[in-house]
């Protein structure tokens, strides 16, 4: 949610002219992936134990 909050806050500040466009873009590029992955990690099923994948014969 921090990612979404940062992105929305930066959007509002950019619209009000407080934040320059390049800084808004930087905040967006950093916050959107955090928002997406954070959201998915929040609603995913519980974490499993790690496994060793096929590593060749």
């Amino acid at each position, binding site marked *: 949610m921090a990612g979404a909050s940062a992105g929305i806050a930066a959007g509002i500040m950019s619209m009000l002219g407080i934040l320059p466009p390049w800084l808004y873009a930087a905040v*967006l590029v950093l916050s959107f992936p955090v928002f997406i992955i954070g959201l998915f990690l929040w609603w995913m099923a519980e974490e499993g134990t790690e496994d060793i994948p096929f590593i060749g014969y």
Partner: protein
Amino acid sequence: MIAELVMATIFGLLLLGIHRKVIARIQRRPGPPVWQEILHMLKFSFKSTWIPATASTVLFRGVVLVAIGIWTAAFFVMLTGGSLLVIFGIYMLHKIVEHGFGLSSGSPYGKFGGVRSVISAASEIPLFVSVAAIAIFTRSFDISDIVAYQQVHGPLMFIAFPAAVAMYIVMLSKMPFGPFSIVESKELVSGYKTEHFGVWRAGLEVCNGLKTTVLLATFLMIFFGQLPLLWMIAGMLLLVVSLSFACALTPMLSPFDSVTIQTLVTGLMLCYGAVLIAGVMA
């Protein structure tokens, strides 16, 4: 902008679903529903997730964030009419990201997929030549200037047709199940993304959706100018269907044939660029 990013992602995934459906119908299969890719992304996001014991934990997670981040940047540049060079720099960066995906898991399938993504970077070279050809006409790399040029002189599709063909081939190389999709070839299971599953795979699907929207919308803006939203959506649908036909009717090439064909296209584009430059000098 977050709302636009989410919509662009969902629309891109819908286009990928249509791509799969059209390929299936051409091959006389029922195929999945068109919203399958959206369900796919949601399904992975709900699944139980863990990281393989052989993986580099930081790279395994970080590369997903980087993948979404770079296409967020591309989307922003496209919407604000920024430089085409930034978008195409991101195309190149995506190859490095695919390489990172492949190497991070420790699986040989992923590693081979990662290596192939570097080989297939040859597919980006026609792109740079087509960008140079566009700049010869428009005297600018900015999308806003390219759009403004087309409002005066008409669509670049007709003025710089070979550049449009070269970029179409680049788009074809980016579409799944295409003749140049050597990074996701079935002998490599799922290629560079073999070991990324659960939340991390869902993140990769988000990246793919965003990438598809940016790829198609940029093509339309560069070669047809600024279209109304409905025309833009119709254009993207038409482009996807045409790409699906190309993907369904051509076999997947071997890695070396893929690189050879891309290099030949580059050679032809260089000849075209030379003719344009000679015309400017004369």
